[in-house]
């Protein structure tokens, strides 16, 4: 099913590549992707969507949290349901 993830990361050259590379390396295709700076110019927000089952999204969330320049990862649908 379709999942949308919201990721805060340090606004640096290369950080986006790291996130995109992680998804590719673990076999997920990113369907949509938006990146923009937040009110704090040192931080950017990355919103992406992908097709993935629930176990897969739980695992990719955990793997994304291991990226050193990632500040926060949220899965708003899970947050709303909880």
């Amino acid at each position, binding site marked *: 099913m379709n999942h949308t993830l919201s990721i805060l*990361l340090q606004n*640096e*050259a*290369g950080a986006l590549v790291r996130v995109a*590379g992680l998804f590719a390396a673990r076999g997920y295709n990113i369907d949509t992707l938006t990146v923009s700076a937040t009110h704090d110019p*040192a931080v950017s927000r990355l919103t992406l969507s992908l097709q993935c089952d629930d176990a897969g999204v739980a*695992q990719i969330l955990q793997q994304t949290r291991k990226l*050193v320049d990632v500040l*926060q990862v949220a899965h708003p649908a899970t947050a709303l349901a909880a």
Partner: protein
Amino acid sequence: MTTSAQTTQPNQAIAIDQHPLTGHAMSGADVIVQVFADQGVEVMFGYSGGAILPVYDAVFRYNATHPKDNGDEPMPLIVPANEQGAGFMAAGYARASGKVGVAVVTSGPGATNMVTPVRDSMADSIPLVVICGQVSTVAIGSDAFQEAPISNIMGACAKHVFLVTDPAQLEATLRTAFTLARSGRPGPVVVDVPKDVQNTTLKFHGTGELALTGYRARLRAVEQSALSDADCAAFFTALMQAKRPLIYAGGGVIAASAATALRAFVDTFGLPVTTTLMGLGGFDTTDPLALHMLGMHGTAYANYAVEDCDFMLTLGARFDDRVAGVPDKFAPRAKFIAHIDIDPAEIGKVKSVHWHHVGPLVRALERLTSYGRAHGLQPAFDAWHTHVAELKRMHALNYDRSSALIQPYAVLEAINRHTDGRAIISTGVGQHQMWAAQYFDFRAPRHWLTSGSMGTMGFGLPAAIGAQFAHPDKLVIDIDGDGSIRMNLGELETVTTYNLPIKVVVLNNVGDGMVRQWQKLYFKGRFAASDKSLHKKDFVLAAQADGFAWAQRLERTEDLEATIAAFLAFDGPAFLEVMIDPDAGVYPMVGPGASYAQMITGDFIASRAVAVTGEAAPSNMF
């Protein structure tokens, strides 16, 4: 990756804590070397080249101006034949010592040759700091000589990579690299430093790291997490109901220095222990409750115990495909599986568990032990202990002891009689690696150095070199194969250049034995590219050419004991090639995609079920 502009600067007003060089002007290259010194680096490994020359010069000057009391260099720079060798030396040093291994290489090919050891260290959670020279910032992106996009390439392989484009961030970035490498689940950190940054004059601070607020917040949460009384109660409720509990311990026990805490837990509650390939040495393999290694080539008795157990405690392990090839059928009778790990992403990744804890292993084990003691919880597992002892007796490792050909197992048993589980053993990858894992005893952590997850052939010789620098007075033995040692054969010369008393054993079966074993099983014996009978190399001559004063070939079983005794007794680098039975196989074997119930034990290890015979079906499993 540029580095963050934010740094944490502890209060520098307290003069007593101030670094003696604070405020001094020095080049970026000198900053790198000074941070190394402050971090306790005692040896580094690397190969020179244009883009790293300023750092090499700074190392030279540091060593010349800071001799140790005995006149030795404080931070010798060990030069391999190839940068991959430097990476595996740093990894061998890190694995044997528990400290961060350091490698320093040039840009382009120097850095890309380092990719394999970096990925290998990531896969086995080994802490490294790798400094790569890079072309000057103005040349980045211009397809310059010896330019490669190292932050992109290493970003996919390492725990983290920094490209330092702002010289002001160099010092904090380097210090942060060491923190990242050793904290949480350890791993390799790469710092790509353009040559102009190395040459920039900087003011040395002596303190300060990058903020990395996200990483540090997550790390703090994991490090501070503790088992509640309710967590402990749930754990012990299940354990007290269990009749056949088993500990499955992985490399996390070694990385977390948790062997003592594990020993105390086992002494208190009496759970038998099996370890993964990476966990060997985490629990004394000669202990009555030790079941040695489990998995694809684990001992039959460990795998039967996994089949039989009704409770499993997983410590610093991750149910990988060499252990749990079919996760649903792994530990099929376990009513309760508990999992403790430092990495939240490993919980439920492969197998869902009934109870888990993410946190430091030593504290978790000590907490469980003290909770159980305080509540007088003394489970009685006598019948299970008897069963385990019977499994070990009935299904012990064995081989054709009457063969006229030299059996590799006999060679390893003979060496083990001398070393008694106290030597540092490194290996390449393949049959010899599995035989070494099975037939050697390991009494303590950090004596077993092997490329577990990546399975990198060529690991053994450079890893042994790194380990010997970590422990100059210990016996270090590289158990290698003829295929594996070819991959980094140039490092034979490194052994003699530095006069390291390493003992190199090549178990020569004239080919890639593990590949042949799979080709026998799954490809009707068509030995595509795995037969080396046309290869002309004389390994003994090669070792002699590289300066080995003791280099011999063992070809007759009757010479085995005396040759091995002389080989191990030689005071200096020694090389022993053993011509082994080329048809010797690795047993037991749980085939790819098979469950433990389908384990093949071969002709000499007793199986408790009749194994399914005939050629296995083609499989996509690896």
